[in-house]
């Protein structure tokens, strides 16, 4: 799967201060997740939709993302309309579809998609390292920030290593099937990744020591809130609060 697919772009949404992005996404998500009104949830999608349009993201790719992560809501649609007690609106053989169940499933689907779109529009349009840097300004403990930093830094390295090992297995005629041999082969692959990474982490530690690491990264580039950061941040917060108040 492609990472940071939407992160490069020149729109104002991309250029928004990452601290503003994180705060807005969190407030909006909490407000939407906790409300129980279908109309309010439907209206809430306006904000992420507006941001997505402004960010000029590829519509097809965004829809593909949405389709993948809607697996869970689809799973709920298989149950909720049939099992929620309430007024029957339609009957197929032994199954009855209840109004309350449909309502609840629809509410969950809208909520979930609204929040996902918001995360996609704001967090998805930033590089991970930028977001991690922003976290350090938002009272996230230093150790956790460093953990994020190192983890994402090495995901790519380890993914390359995984592909190299996987290619080596394929060249030797490995074909995954449902048998113990396959699982053992994958286990040794994971085991090898773990061991190499463990040794790599020791080298990282040594390299950090050589450079006099004292538990702090010195950041040269600092964020500066511009006028449009305040404007977008303020209006999005106002929108979220309106959603919460107007019922």
């Amino acid at each position, binding site marked *: 799967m492609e990472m940071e697919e939407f992160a490069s772009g020149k729109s104002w949404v991309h250029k928004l201060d990452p601290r503003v992005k994180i705060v807005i996404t969190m407030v909006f998500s909490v407000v939407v*997740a906790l409300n129980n009104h279908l109309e309010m949830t439907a209206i809430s999608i306006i904000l992420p939709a507006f941001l997505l349009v402004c960010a000029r993201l590829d519509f097809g790719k965004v829809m593909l993302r949405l389709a993948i992560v809607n697996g869970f809501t689809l799973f709920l649609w298989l149950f909720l309309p049939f099992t929620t007690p309430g007024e029957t609106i339609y009957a197929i053989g032994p199954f009855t579809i209840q109004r309350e169940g449909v309502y609840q499933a629809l509410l969950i689907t*809208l909520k*979930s998609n609204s929040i996902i779109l918001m995360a996609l529009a704001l967090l998805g349009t930033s590089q991970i390292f930028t977001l991690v840097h922003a976290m350090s300004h938002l009272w996230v403990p230093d150790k956790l920030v460093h953990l994020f930093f*190192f983890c994402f830094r090495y995901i790519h390295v380890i993914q390359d290593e995984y592909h190299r090992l996987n290619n080596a297995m394929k060249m030797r005629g490995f074909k995954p099937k449902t048998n113990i041999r396959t699982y053992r082969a994958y*286990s040794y692959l*994971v085991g090898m*990744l773990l061991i190499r990474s463990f040794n790599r*982490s020791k080298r990282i530690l040594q390299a950090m020591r050589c450079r006099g690491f004292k538990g702090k990264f010195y950041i040269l580039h600092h964020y500066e809130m511009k006028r449009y950061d305040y404007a977008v941040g303020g209006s999005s917060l106002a929108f979220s609060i309106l959603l919460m108040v107007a019922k």
Partner: protein
Amino acid sequence: MHISEGVLTAPVLCVGAVLTFAGLAIGLRKMDYEKLPEVAVLSSVFFVASLIHVPIGPSAAHLILNGLCGVLLGWLAFPAIFVGLTLQGVLFEYGGVTTLGVNTFNMAVPAVIMGFICRYFIKSPRLAVRVVSEFVAGAGAILLSGLLVAVCLVIALGESMDSAAKLVVLAHIPIMIIEGLITVFVVEFILKVQPEML
């Protein structure tokens, strides 16, 4: 299994967030800077492993390996799993901001519990004892996670989710077996190749 946004109710989300916060605090306190690169890089390995799909009959499942994570990292599995889930949320939109607490709790608590049990028996010189404890760690972590997800769904959506909750647990059974086997093979492999890692 990630619970997606908008499904759970406020009390479930809050309890999940608070408990995860506590777990993270313990994990971070136990992790000094000497240990940080190791936790971070192992957490990247678990992230990459979660993109590996293994075949189960006609279908395929991605690896979770939270049991193995607990065996290798103990309490530190909490921050490691939190970081992995957050990155999955931001990069692929699986889970999200409000469910992060609950999802981390559902994955990390079984990891820590199973890790503790297994780390005790893993020192045994008898192969049979080791294999059983490793299998229990891998399979048990998935079972516990599945149960926690099911419990969350039932609390949030009421009795109408009973059948769905049962299905969630049933669907985890084949994954349990595979994760158990993989945990046995991986831990035995590490014991052979680099025992000081455990």
